[in-house]
């Protein structure tokens, strides 16, 4: 049972035991443990924070402090497709603002949000390092470059079709 009174059935904490066995002995590995936990659960559930704290001899507050400091960690589940929209300087100069508007309007979500059907999550990121292809977004590890608002929406539509099939 989750300890944050969210009434969820709780996460399967056993999945993390292998990771904690390999890395849990050294407090310096907390970030690595959180990264592995996110790979397993898709995000960092609260009961996992408590579990890591207990097993690594830390406190939930300290673990939570680290989890909230770094942008990579998510405390909520995400959709099937994670759209990482680059907001770096080169993308900004080349119109990433318009791309964001188009995506938000099309999916009816804002930065950090997930669509009701659980298909798409949007996250603005600092720089993906593909500046020459700006504006860029990366969806589940695949980069899409030289975007226009219409092209971005088209890509989302294609993914939606792909998911339906």
């Amino acid at each position, binding site marked *: 049972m989750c300890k944050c009174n969210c009434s969820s059935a709780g996460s399967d904490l056993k999945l993390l035991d292998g990771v904690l066995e390999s890395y849990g002995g*050294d*407090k*310096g*590995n*907390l*970030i*690595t443990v*959180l*990264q592995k936990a996110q790979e397993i659960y898709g995000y960092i559930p609260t009961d996992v924070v408590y579990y890591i704290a207990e097993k690594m001899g830390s406190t939930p507050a300290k673990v939570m*402090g*680290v989890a909230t*400091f*770094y*942008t*990579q*960690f998510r405390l909520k589940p995400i959709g099937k497709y994670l759209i990482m929209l680059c*907001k*770096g*300087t*080169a*993308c*900004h*100069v*080349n119109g990433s603002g318009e791309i964001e508007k188009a995506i938000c309007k099309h999916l009816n979500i804002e930065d950090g949000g997930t669509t009701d059907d659980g298909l798409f999550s949007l996250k603005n*990121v*600092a*720089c*993906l*390092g*593909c*500046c*020459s*292809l*700006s504006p*860029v977004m990366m969806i589940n*590890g695949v*980069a*899409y*470059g030289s975007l226009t608002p219409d092209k971005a929406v088209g890509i989302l539509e294609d993914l939606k079709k792909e998911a339906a099939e």
Partner: protein
Amino acid sequence: MKIVVGQGSCGIAAGAEQVYNSISAAMADSDSFTLGITGCIGMCYLEPIVDIYDGDALVKRLVRVAAKDGEVIVSAVRSGDLSALSALEISEEDEQFLGLQTRIALRNCGLIDPNDIEAYIARGGYEAIKKALSDMSPEGVIEEIKVSGLAGRGGAGFPTWFKWNAARSNAGEKKYLICNADEGDPGAFMDRAVIESDPHNLIEGMLIGAYAIGASEAVVYVRAEYPLAITRLEEAIKQAEKKGYLGDNIFGSDFSCRMRIKAGAGAFVCGEETALIESLEGKRGMPRLKPPFPAQRGYNDMPSNINNVETFANVAWIILNGGAAFSAMGTENSKGTKVFALTGKIKRGGLVEVPMGKTLRHVIFDIGGGVRNGRSFKAVQMGGPSGGCLPESLLDTVIDYKILGATGAIMGSGGMVVMDDRTCMVNMARFFLDFTTKESCGKCVHCRIGTKRMYEVLTRITEGKGKEGDIELLEELCMGIKDGALCGLGQTAPNPVLTAIRYFRDEYEAHINDKKCPAHQCTALISYEIDKEKCVGCSLCARNCPVGAIKGVVKQPYTIDNAACIKCGKCASLCRFGAARAV
């Protein structure tokens, strides 16, 4: 013959994997030529790029290749007649992009297979560490680096030998060598390119550094956003271990060193060395008070030395060619070369390595080809959120730590974002403040709250609610943050605003006093109109206006109802006659 497909992150994003697969599919078992990959060639704007080699000689470079070209390429190479590929061949003008560069840090990038240690060895790889271990004392290595004049390429430009010497002289039961590959500057990607394209060069540079300071453990702190770089470096470390170049008694000497990778988790401030150490120790990446400096008490409280990727990428070359050969290039204060990531509204964007002392104009116009789409140059942003925007009048500034610093911008890690006449400098400053408010770790009050207040003032100005005294208020806040912040992130956060006010003050005044945005970018300060003289009445704008604000009769000038207009700009972007426009 050999076909080589460039597969850096940029190339892959542009479709290099599909190109590779289509070439591979078109090849037959009986073909005598081979197919391979290389890293980033640096001409990002021409990706995907395919090179055809005869032995070691490059005979054809094909650019903007698509997956459908696979068969044509294979059949041309098979027949030995490459003339069929002329449509894809790089132009002479584009060849200048590489021709005008001097490559040291990037010397192997785009030439070797990053996944193959033998390819690196064939180009003289691991000879420098061998030389250092057999012929040079650690002090001798530090002396050679001192002669070279190599300075930290991460931004601060601190002399590398000095840091190495400090870490060497401080006693500790264990010492660490750390590579800062947390390339967080938006618009900079040279470190990623080095790791993806020439990971063994980084490993060798780090080994030499570890030998010089007496470190037995080396850690590379890489941004989590660079998965390909992490994969390639992991593979390279494994290969080097297998060869005995990493581990115990390297090259039969009594020098032993192990190397590991630590993936960052996304925090710009972790590029600051003490914050990076905190992060390595599994904590929130908040900067420490200095002294003690990392060279005294760093990672795990042991003497540690931290250098940037590009700094290490120069080290093996210096040891092999001598410090004097390196310091022969550059200016009095800045030696060697510097890599820049040229992006933004530039015609030819990519990675550029030039000797120090060249002008910004040389990089942007001679190599980068100037501003694209026939627009005019307005500013170049140097050094990311810690740097500044320089106007056209400063284009003849030479690349030199001191001289660039005097303009208010900084060399930084080498991001160079070019902006054209349609970029609003107030909005640009606001963009950087948005970044710094989000990335401030929150430790120092001035940085945490001051940047937020600056962001609010800049937002107000772009929304047409600027007040008299706002410029002075911004300047005051800037000074407070510069004085009141502990680390480089905070101290330099005001730079984009200070340089924008210094060089583009009239634009700030136009926003505040006249409620106008000269670049026509701030929605609240512009309106759209149709020029009656130019409008031919084609109705394209009216048919596409999302709110039906454009009215008129075909073949007669149309008009915009400003009360209904939502300023989306669609009419201006669609109009083929330049009639619909922002004013």
